[in-house]
């Protein structure tokens, strides 16, 4: 799941021939001024912070400018803002267009139908979650025949388009469908999609690409995402790692078991701070790496909960003991372990030899780690 910044999404849109306002990225106030002064971005223009979180408008991250000087001032005001933890480093400057109507349009996956779904609403410019279901049309699209003309007509009808804008929609949907498939997108959202004159223009572009398809998209390699630096390192190592707000680090194998472990900790008053899913591995080095990564997150205590399958208990124990050697004494954390399943005996023995006791039940081990972290259990 890689969210693209608006300007990257619009670069993709441009590649597939979708209708966009004239615009350009700026990284300094001076650049913003120059772009508007030399006509690259016509005036009046809108200046938008390129951050991944939504709700920019309300947060002061979108401003308008009528002159190059105004553009510089606005750019200076937005650049460097912290926006939901994300610093603004890029701005998108775009011509301000005479909007007749704002619509909503997206293509995403319907997990239940197991089909792509085209979602349209005549109420654009607001979050789609806030729009009443009766004003939203959901059109499943089957990948075999692809997006059919009758489906495009249906979308046009729901959006209340006729004439030029309806024709524009036809082409736009064709392009968007191609983009959705070829770029392995999880979501392409245009909100608002604006009626301007006799056609349509995509005022915003939200694109989420599926990183599992990265093997056919070498061009994605250098794309920044909204992962934390540690999450990014974990991703490169093939470890599922999510930073949360608490102080207990959880290492488990398997997404379900890891989540269940978090749930149990929370139930006993603990606050999980790291979700680390080892996945299936029988390489002790990967386990060591995972632990060292965990150490970098500076947890108050760590809970290791393993049910051995593909990942054997002795492999995990070996990797863990090695990791503990490598963590400087000052950075060590209390560790509670529970290892069960394949090669359990061997694993428990390896841990014991290193001075770590494996507590066999989930309840007791969870309570122990919450206590170690200073929680209420």
């Amino acid at each position, binding site marked *: 799941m890689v969210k693209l910044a608006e300007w990257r999404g619009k670069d993709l849109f441009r590649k597939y021939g979708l209708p966009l306002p004239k615009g350009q990225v700026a990284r300094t106030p001076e650049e913003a001024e120059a772009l508007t002064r030399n006509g690259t971005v016509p005036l009046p223009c809108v200046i938008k912070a390129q951050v991944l979180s939504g709700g920019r408008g309300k947060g002061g991250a979108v401003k308008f400018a009528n002159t190059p000087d105004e553009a510089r001032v606005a750019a200076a005001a937005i650049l460097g803002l912290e926006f939901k933890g994300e610093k603004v480093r890029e701005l998108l400057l775009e011509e301000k267009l005479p909007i007749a109507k704002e619509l909503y349009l997206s293509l995403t996956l319907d997990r239940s139908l197991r089909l792509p779904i085209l979602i349209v609403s005549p109420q654009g410019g607001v979050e789609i979650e806030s729009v009443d279901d009766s004003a939203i049309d959901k059109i499943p699209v089957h990948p075999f025949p692809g997006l059919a003309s009758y489906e495009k007509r249906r979308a046009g009808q729901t959006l209340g388009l006729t004439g030029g804008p309806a024709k524009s929609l036809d082409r736009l949907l064709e392009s968007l469908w191609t983009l959705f498939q070829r770029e392995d997108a999880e979501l392409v959202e245009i909100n608002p999609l604006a009626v301007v004159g006799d056609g349509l223009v995509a005022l915003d572009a939200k694109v989420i690409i599926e990183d599992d398809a990265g093997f056919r998209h070498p061009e994605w390699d250098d794309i920044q995402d909204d992962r934390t630096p540690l999450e990014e390192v974990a991703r490169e190592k093939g470890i599922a790692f999510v930073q949360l707000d608490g102080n207990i680090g959880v290492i488990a194998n*398997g997404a379900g078991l890891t989540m269940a472990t978090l749930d149990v900790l929370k139930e006993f008053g603990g606050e999980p701070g790291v979700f680390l899913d080892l*996945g*299936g591995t029988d390489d002790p080095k990967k386990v060591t790496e995972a632990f060292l990564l965990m150490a970098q997150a500076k947890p108050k205590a760590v809970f290791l909960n393993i049910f051995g399958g593909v990942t054997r208990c002795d492999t995990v124990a070996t990797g863990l003991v090695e990791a503990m050697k490598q963590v400087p004494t000052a950075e060590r954390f209390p560790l509670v372990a529970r290892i069960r399943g394949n090669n359990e005996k061997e694993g428990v023995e390896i841990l014991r030899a290193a001075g770590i006791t494996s507590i066999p039940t989930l309840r007791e081990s969870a309570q122990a780690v919450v206590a170690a972290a200073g929680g209420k259990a």
Partner: protein
Amino acid sequence: MTVLVDERTRVVVQGITGHQGTVHTRQMKQFGTQVVAGVTPGKGGTEVEGVPVFDSVREAVQRTQANASCIFVPAPYAKDALLEAVDAGILLSVIVTEHIPFHDMLVMYHYSRSKGGRIIGPNCPGIAAPGKAKIGIIPNVVFHPGRVGVISRSGTLTYEIVNGIKEHGLGQSACIGLGGDPVVGTSFVDALPLFQADPETDVIVMVGEIGGTAEEEGAEYIRHHVTKPVVAYIAGRSAPPGKRMGHAGAIISRGRGTAETKLAALSAAGARVARFPYEIPDLVAEIVAKQAHR
């Protein structure tokens, strides 16, 4: 047949010469499964764990009458492997491979279905019926033949729960790991009827997690069609929205897919809901005890 597999299941392992393929071929055989063929293009004529290897599924089916496939091939080639299995007439495929792009899986799913095929997975531990056959990677040791059916979106959590059932002195009729991806070939609504219809299943355990609405749809199915007792557990109650929790499918997006709505739906459909994984065997044992009294 119990559920989907039994003694007549003849498995071809696609990607048998890889590390995972080889290890799990051995374990499937140890479970008692008839693993009759392996396929790795270019490795035809060799043998792995006593199983003949062929260059194509078509050849494997012609020579060994394989009727089910277990797919271990890497994600970039998984779509092709599944299409090959379907075109060779194989109607049950278990896909262990993870990280298959969902756009590929959409094609795989709908093509397979148009040919009357069924996919378990991808990114799943597979299916096992103790005393009969296993396709996939669930550890053999957690099983004991019995009358509890398990359907789960998880891997290791399932092993833990299945093992807990065994440690309670109970056993399983069959266990299906549906897989943790957003698009899976077999979902709760597809698996529930199999256990409901299975004369060897008395209780159904359903292990869900956050993300999507598969559990809600399962609950709806339970409400209308399942007469057997159901024990349900949902992992991810404490997960924050917008974060992918290990599984590609485990994400609360735009307020949908929370544990709360799932638990509420299951509870309303008459399922017994466990708050902790270790409560599941207790609840199952309680139900079994009551059934024995009747």
